């Protein structure tokens, strides 16, 4: 059945994309100058790339800092500060040849010593330091070569390093002993920090010492040849969505982040503002606790999965969305349809039958959600009603996102089911998924531990894909994860700038004033 709302939105997206393609055509002169004002949902909390994990922080950080590799337009790993990466046949030694002549914004040349110091700092301060747990040695045989040796093979190690969250950015070696969140804001990126007023705004200005990667044809995601046309980019913190919309309508902002679906209607028909849909952005997913009370029962978990109605849940929240049975987004090489039988089943009858099979006797099921994200709250409310129809004794527990996130990560709070939006894992691949899989509280499940060990050990992509398919099928069939939908992030922009393209985290290099 065709979903008119979704189709209209997809068409809308296509129109925006088409308009952008025209705007970036050869007729448009690419010139330096101008300033862009971006009204974002929150203030930049930290500019320390090794610890940052919030999108508002990361969007600015990746204009200032770069890593050896970065995610490309297709979200695969691409060389950035490294010109190439050689992987030994046993998958244990990674030799990075560094680009020569790359400079930090303070004018100092970046060498292997800076890379080594950055990785040593990362091991000390980053919450993602366990990603380097298997590193046996790091060597710098010459100023332009950096070698990482692992204790055991990991064919996905370079993919791990492309992550934009807890970025493996290269900082000057002098910052090696700087504590977390206390760096000097010096990077190799096309922009540098000019001004930062916490809770208010952060201004980036063009980094005149920037050395672009001329071997690339142009920008490629967060990699490639980047050109800073804009003199400056100002990131204002405007948490209230209505105020962000007012800001772009009144000329107080050129670009705004995250417009709720219902408020996007206010911009309909406005010739000066275009709404850009970034989809897929995240995926709405229910998680069932593998080790708490009744949700240890396979049939009860399956019954919950059988009730999910993607359309009803997303429409209730006014969310722009798309159907996708996979835990991976469609651009990913790991996208699969193995989970299709358990997707969008919307069957109360099937749920009732499964509950009977599982000898469910009215035990309480706690569904924990939060009031901060409309799609999480509304999807949970719809699921709770469906569960009641199926005869389940459900308690809907509404908390704030901080509590919800903490409970989800630690398995605390007494929840049996909770919901979250998963963003980077579905985009970046299985290596990024591992920690999110642990939300089901079964990190020691042999399907996960053995699966990942085998996946890391093989250099054959087809084999890795087969193993991931097995893990994904297991989590969906068991109902540990119940996929609802891919969801969009709506952003607004005025017509002053050319070449602004939809991307997971917004970029403003290679954007110029029309």
């Amino acid at each position, binding site marked *: 059945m065709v979903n008119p709302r979704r189709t209209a939105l997809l068409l809308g997206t296509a129109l925006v994309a088409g308009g952008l393609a025209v705007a970036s055509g050869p007729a448009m002169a690419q010139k330096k100058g101008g300033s862009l004002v971006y*009204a974002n949902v929150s*203030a930049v*909390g*930290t500019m320390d790339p090794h*610890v940052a*994990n*919030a999108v508002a922080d990361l969007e600015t950080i990746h204009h200032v800092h770069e890593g050896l590799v970065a995610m490309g337009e297709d979200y695969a790993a691409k060389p950035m500060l490294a010109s190439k990466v050689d992987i030994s046949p046993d998958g244990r030694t990674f030799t990075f040849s560094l680009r020569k002549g790359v400079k930090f914004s303070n004018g100092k040349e970046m060498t292997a010593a800076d890379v080594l110091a950055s990785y040593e700092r990362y091991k000390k301060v*980053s*919450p*993602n*330091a*366990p990603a380097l747990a298997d590193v046996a040695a790091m060597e710098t045989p010459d100023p332009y070569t950096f070698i990482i040796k692992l204790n055991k093979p990991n064919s996905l190690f370079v993919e791990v390093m492309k992550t934009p*969250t*807890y970025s493996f950015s290269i900082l000057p070696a002098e910052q090696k002993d700087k*504590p*977390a*969140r*206390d760096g000097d804001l010096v990077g190799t990126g096309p922009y540098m920090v000019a001004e930062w*007023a*916490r*809770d*208010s*705004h952060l201004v980036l200005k063009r980094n005149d010492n920037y050395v672009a990667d001329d071997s690339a044809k142009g920008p490629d995601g967060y990699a490639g040849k980047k050109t800073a046309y804009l003199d400056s980019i100002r990131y*204002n*913190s*405007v*948490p*209230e969505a*209505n*105020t962000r919309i*007012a*800001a772009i*309508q*009144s*000329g*107080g902002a050129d670009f705004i982040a995250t417009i709720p679906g219902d408020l996007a209607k206010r911009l309909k028909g406005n010739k000066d503002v275009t709404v850009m849909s970034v989809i897929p952005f995240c995926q709405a997913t229910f998680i069932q606790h593998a080790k708490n009370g009744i949700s240890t029962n396979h049939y009860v978990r399956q019954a919950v999965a059988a009730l999910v109605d993607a359309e009803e849940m997303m429409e209730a929240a006014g969310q722009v969305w798309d159907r996708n049975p996979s835990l991976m987004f469609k651009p990913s090489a790991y996208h699969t349809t193995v989970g299709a039988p358990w997707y969008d089943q919307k069957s109360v009858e099937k749920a009732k039958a499964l509950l009977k099979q599982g000898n469910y006797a009215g035990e309480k099921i706690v569904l924990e959600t939060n009031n901060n994200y409309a799609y999480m709250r509304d999807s949970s409310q719809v699921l709770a009603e469906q569960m009641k129809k199926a005869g389940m004794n459900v308690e809907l527990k509404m*908390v*704030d*996102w*901080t*509590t919800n*996130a*903490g*409970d*989800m*990560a*630690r398995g605390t*709070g007494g929840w049996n089911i909770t919901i*979250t939006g998963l963003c*980077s*894992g579905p985009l970046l691949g299985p290596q*990024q998924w591992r*920690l*999110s899989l*642990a939300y089901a509280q079964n990190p020691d499940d042999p399907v996960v531990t053995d699966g990942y060990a085998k996946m890391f050990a093989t250099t054959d992509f087809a084999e890795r894909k087969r193993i991931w398919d097995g893990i994904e099928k297991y989590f969906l069939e068991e109902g540990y994860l119940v996929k609802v939908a891919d969801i969009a992030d709506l952003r607004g922009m005025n017509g002053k700038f050319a070449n602004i393209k939809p991307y997971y985290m917004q970029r403003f290099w290679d954007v110029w004033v029309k």
Partner: protein
Amino acid sequence: MKLLRRLAYRLGQAVPVILVVAVLAFFLMHLLPGDPAVIIAGTEAGPEAVERIRHQLGLDRSIPEQLIVWLWHLAQGDFGTSIIHNESVLSALADRMPVTLSLTLVSFAITIPVGILFGVAAAKFRNTWIDSAVMFLALVGVSVPGFWIAILSVILFSVTLGWLPASGYVPLSQGVLPWLLALLQPAAMLALFQIGFLARMARSATLDVLDQDYIRTARAKGVSEWQTIAKHAFRNTLIPVVTATGIILSLLMGGSVVIEQVFALPGVGRLIVQAILTRDYPMVQGTLLALAFMFVAINLMVDIVYTWVDPRVRYD
């Protein structure tokens, strides 16, 4: 001298109040579910990383132990360091306070004359359409949610008319006019509620005064009506109004939490909201404590102003 002694006595009385606020703030924050270590580490971090951060921040210690450590640092003048931003609480407050003070003072400057004028006018023209209009506006002011009216105001004055900026703050150092333009709309919205409150109070106080014998005497002596109000009634009306202004100043500071959020003003209100959302314990505790100090100071100021307004009140 007696005044100074009295002030010192009042400040001494404030110490246990502030101590209670400190302990309450500590327990209220720690009673909230949610873990700041998860916020710092991010939801994609593993349990070991979260535990490491908990240990680094001392969150793995018992609650009484954490309270004692915090109070000990407080006694030494150390308000602590934000566990989210790695920034000293006092320095964060010093950065944000000018915004909140600016907003509060501009709002206060709107509230007091408008509220008193409305109240006195309503009393003077008691039971006329002016009285009804003022009381209706006062009712609207105290009834309509500030958040909602602020959004409507942004749509009208920023989007439709384009007269005022929709959001953001301009420091006073960049010019009085830009500073005032940035604050006018949020300050007016913040003032709306308090104008209603003050107008009702000023009306009732003026009505009481206008019934007094000395007003009748002034009128009998042939003093003009406006002179009677301005010279004889107004100063006596001010006594309950001064009490109310102290409360209003405190309420304006409290109300700034919502208004700063809507108008994206980087003040103490937003700081505290963010700190609560991220369970930044030292920041919330330190900010609440600083606000408690300020409220005590405002009350003291009101006491001093009293002695000027009403010569019968003396500290002797």
